[in-house]
């Protein structure tokens, strides 16, 4: 009887869980679709007004949205556009052109893309993808023929704006800004970038034509707000079908937000970065742990996720090395200590290793030199050591100068957790003088 009951609850739970998974994953992966902005109301209003004037009055403009990575620049813009599109007069009156500096790597490609997105290619038939010069002349001509009151405004969104700056002569930027400052088709140019020094990169003519409107998006919230964001991101909405489950889930989230360990985890992350994407990533890891048998997120889930998130990648590699390779790394560490970070070569490492072997020969098998060389090359491949110059035909491999890409702390930490590490090796690691 009770078994059947539990089975039933499992099946209903199963549905709920899959729905929760779907909902939260969507929210965490497509950051911009969440529909919530945190601490950018002022910027939101500025941008909204700007774009509204472009579409309603046909006023040309240009603006840059500047903020560190993950601060919600694109989210802000998308949010504004979404709200704008709800106004009928705007929806039917705006042409959008989206460019990305990572995709449109030069002006030629960018021009083609603009022509395509403006749907001008049918006008020219087969001619559109003619020479670069023709395309530019064509597009300028197209934009020149319009005027403020009669042409449809065009919104240019340049993502990764800083990459457009490196195009030859900044031709595209000059022309876009020039149009925005002359009585032609109304255009608004919005650039998104994370570089604070973007204005210094613009050429003086281009800079003069840019309107100097800069909208700074900065994560300016404090930890309390951060916790609230955490709560909002995890909570299920009121329209969730299974109300009792939603209630339970939300209560749990509320408990979590005041839990000491969770607060610690969040505090650590908050101190590390204010970027909301990293929070999403952390929550994503925790949410993936939710199953039918484990229907609610616990504090330990978050802790586990945080541990996973904060893993040191290089130290992780060290865990998987053989004892010989560990020995080589220890030898390099000693060399670094002795020579204060000067580069070393294989021969030096081998000598250091030999010294150790001669003293403590009983615990380590004395490997042949080629074997040690092989181990050394494996380290090279793992990029734990890095040659400071390119290997050439002239220098022998043994004498190629190298640098160790690990810090002492990392080595010692890795040794602590290394399974079945011989005691002698550990001793040797702590002190190079122990053999005396």
């Amino acid at each position, binding site marked *: 009887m009770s078994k059947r009951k539990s089975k039933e609850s499992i099946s209903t739970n199963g549905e709920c869980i899959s729905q929760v998974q779907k909902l939260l994953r969507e929210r965490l992966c497509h950051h911009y679709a969440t529909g919530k902005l945190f601490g950018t109301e002022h910027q939101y209003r500025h941008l909204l007004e700007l774009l509204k004037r472009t579409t*309603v009055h046909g006023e040309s403009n240009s603006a840059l949205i500047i903020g*560190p990575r993950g601060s919600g620049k694109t989210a802000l813009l998308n949010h504004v556009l979404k709200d704008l599109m709800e106004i009928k007069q705007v929806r039917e009156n705006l042409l959008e052109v989206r460019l990305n500096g990572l995709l449109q790597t030069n002006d030629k490609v960018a021009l083609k893309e603009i022509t395509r997105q403006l749907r001008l290619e049918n006008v020219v038939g087969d001619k559109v993808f003619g020479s670069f010069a023709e395309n530019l002349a064509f597009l300028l001509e197209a934009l020149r023929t319009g005027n403020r009151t009669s*042409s449809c405004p065009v919104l240019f969104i340049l993502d990764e704006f800083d990459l457009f700056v490196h195009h030859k002569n900044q*031709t595209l930027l000059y022309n876009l800004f020039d149009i925005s*400052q002359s009585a032609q088709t109304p255009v608004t140019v919005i650039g998104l970038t994370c570089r604070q020094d973007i204005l210094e990169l613009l050429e003086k003519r281009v800079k003069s034509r840019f309107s100097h409107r800069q909208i700074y998006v900065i994560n300016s919230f404090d930890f309390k707000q951060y916790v609230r964001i955490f709560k909002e991101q995890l909570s299920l909405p009121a329209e969730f079908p299974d109300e009792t489950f939603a209630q339970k889930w939300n209560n749990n989230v509320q408990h979590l937000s005041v839990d000491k360990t969770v607060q610690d985890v969040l505090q650590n992350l908050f101190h590390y*970065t204010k970027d909301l994407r990293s929070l999403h990533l952390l929550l994503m890891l925790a949410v993936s742990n939710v199953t039918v048998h484990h229907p609610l997120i616990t504090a330990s889930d978050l802790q586990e996720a945080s541990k996973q998130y904060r893993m040191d990648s290089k130290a992780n590699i060290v865990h998987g090395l053989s004892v010989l390779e560990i020995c080589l790394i220890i030898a390099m560490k000693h060399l670094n200590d002795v020579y204060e970070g000067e580069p070393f070569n294989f021969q030096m490492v081998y000598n250091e290793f030999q010294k150790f072997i001669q003293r403590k020969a009983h615990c380590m098998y004395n490997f042949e030199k080629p074997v040690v060389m092989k181990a050394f090359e494996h380290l090279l491949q793992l990029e734990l050591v890095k040659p400071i110059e390119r290997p050439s035909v002239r220098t022998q491999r043994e004498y190629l100068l190298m640098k160790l890409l*690990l810090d002492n*702390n990392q080595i010692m930490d890795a040794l602590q957790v290394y399974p079945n590490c011989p005691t002698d090796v550990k001793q040797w690691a702590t002190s190079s003088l122990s053999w005396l």
Partner: protein
Amino acid sequence: MNTQQQNKIIYSWYGKPTNSDRKLRTLQYKGIIIKSERSRTEKCIQLGNFVLIEGENADQPFVAQLLDFYEDGAQQKHAVVQWFSHITEIPQNKRKLLKREVSPQEVFFDQVSGYDNDIAVETIIESVLVIPLHPKEELPITLNKEKIFYVKQSWDGKCFKALSTDTFSKLKDANKKGDGIPNSLNSFVPLDIISSMKKETKKVVRSVMKTKNVEVEIESKHSASKSSLSKERYSQRVANGTKTPTARKKLQLNSPTKFPKSKLLDCDVLELLDDDCDTIVMLEPSAAKRKVKFTGILGSPPKIPCADDDSNSVGDAAEHRQRFSDTIRLSPYSNVQKSNEKAKNLNIKDDTMCLTGLQELGSLSPVVTPRSRRACAQKTSARIAQQISLLNMIDSSQEEDFLSSSDGLYSSSSEEEDNNVLCTPEKKTKAGRIFSTPKSSRKPSVHTPAKTLKKTPLPGTPKTPRNATPEIPRRSHAAQKPASMLEEARLRLHVSAIPKSLPCREEEFQDIYNFVESKLIDGTGGCMYISGVPGTGKTATVHEVIRCLQQAAENDDVPAFEFIEINGMKLTDPHQAYVQILELLTGQKVTATHAATLLAKLFCTPGPKRKTTVLIVDELDLLWTRKQNVMYNLFDWPTQKHSKLIILAIANTMDLPERIMMNRVASRLGLTRMSFQPYTYKQLQQIISSRLNSVKAFEEDAIQLVSRKVAALSGDARRCLDICRRATEICEFASQKSAPEIVRMAHVTEAIDEMFSSPYINAIRNASLHEQIFLKAILAEFRRAGVEEATVQQVYHQHISLCRMEGMQSPTVSEIMAICSRLGACRLLLVESSNKYLHMRVRLNISQDDVMYALKDE
């Protein structure tokens, strides 16, 4: 005899020198012989003859009368001419003065001063006939339309006058004299003589069919040979030395050599019309014969019902021909298939029809802009389309758009074919007058049908214009009018708003105006270099000057001129400058190297009459190339004697000529320089006030604050206007609830802060704790090492000790690397590429003091 060879056309003097001037070392002659080696013809042109002279465009030859021939000391052959103006050469706004329609055959005795009447002999194409008429007289009907022009009035640049009796009789005399001399010395082409002799007889309305046939034949041969000849000539000149056939071929492709556009085409059309009529007349008796012919031809259109096959057979040849047949069908000719007996009757009708057609065409011709560089055939068809529309009340604009839409390459090739179509029918007419269809099948059959298909618009289906001027779609809702005072002010303060006058640049304006005006009046060329930092009104002032000059030219205060503009930033490559200039001047689209030669030819040869060109070169510094040949050429042309080119070059740096130009370029640029100083605060204040005009949206102090701030920073007027615009927004925003107010100091200060404040401090203050500690660690490491550069490893150790002091959990190396790259992406730090991992070097992008200041407040 002196011979000079140019592409197989030899110009040699006729007879001995009649007169010699020792002082000037010139020898005068009374005639010249033009010998074409290829067609083995020789033509003699004498003093007093009327000739066609090559123009800028090959399809617009000038008409002139020869007054003098001489050879100068350098053995260059020259001719002195009296110009005649075609209607298309007369400014649009003056054409109204005539108050009547002008046939394309009519020219005006040109008394405009300022045109160079000394030309090189090589530009003479061939002789024509110009017949003076009394103003009341109607133009006689002739067949040889392209070779006969009529003159009724003279044109002195301001108004039209009747010909004085003196000039009238002179012209008449010249004609008689011209007729007396044999036109051709070569017996290979007797037809030419016949045609010239027949000229008079042609004026008589033809009544007998046989004579008419002969006439048509002659004239067709003649016109065919003529148009092909002139075409050849043009391309030869263009090639200018490159004699390989491939080269010429290429050039022809590049620059569609359209020949006598307005005049000749109309004639061709009419001839065609005539021809068709003849065909029709002949059709009935030879119908059977023709059928046989049709079936025999491979790829020719399927059999056509005899009833209207004249129109159909013609129509299949090419699209424009179809248009023709349409005309015919619509016109009274639909009753053509009546019977033989009415042939005569019809013939007369034909002629009247031709005439009306002619007049209509004539009236239309000025509408056609010289820019549209369509192949002649297409143009013809466009006109015919227009004619149809006149008859048929069809909206023809669409069709015209469509017709003028094929791209350059395509049109140039199709043009040749179309020319064939135009010319060959006449050639073939004699052979039993078996019409036009065979021609189409003669041509590569792959090409023609496709084209016909493409070009024939299906009735009722709207065609998308393939090359119509590209345009951004219209907006579906009208733009809102500014509602409040602040919105009005914002509109006026936008940089794009063109003010009625440009305040604070009166001196510069006057200087530039005087410079250009004096050059225009002298009819010489020159350069001026204008420099100034961005946003000081260089381009605006120059445009204002041009606007004023254009106004003055309309009022006849200065000679008319042509204005073109290029911008270095709007070119993808410096050499594209040639292409753009040529396209703006003549409408041709060619490659850069070819454009350069064409332009050089245009500006460096003692050209026949040509308006002065004013060329603005904006952002000059971008036309720099390693060899600097673009700049060199640009500044070299104005120094040429006949160039009539005025260049206004604009750039930012004052010492550009000294810095980047070679000596020979800088020397040609000359010393006419002007520099625009950055605006002072008073000027900026005046600019804002004049723009705002009567709108009271700003406090006086607020305007002054903006102006002082901007003047201290850059003197950039754009910045000033942008700040004001932003201030209105802030003001509007602040006073949303309360009553609208005017922009005050506080709003302006906020706008200025927004635009000029350094973002770094704010960015640091809002960074996460570890990012701030990392910055502190960098400072500590810098202080320890005494070097303003550290590796991540060193900073990492500092970071850990700082964390220990604060009692915090220290981050892992991976986290430190991530923090470092985040700060690097914001450019708070300058970092090396990250593949060095711990050994990556780090520097601060802002001063240590700023970082300390930003971190201390916490």
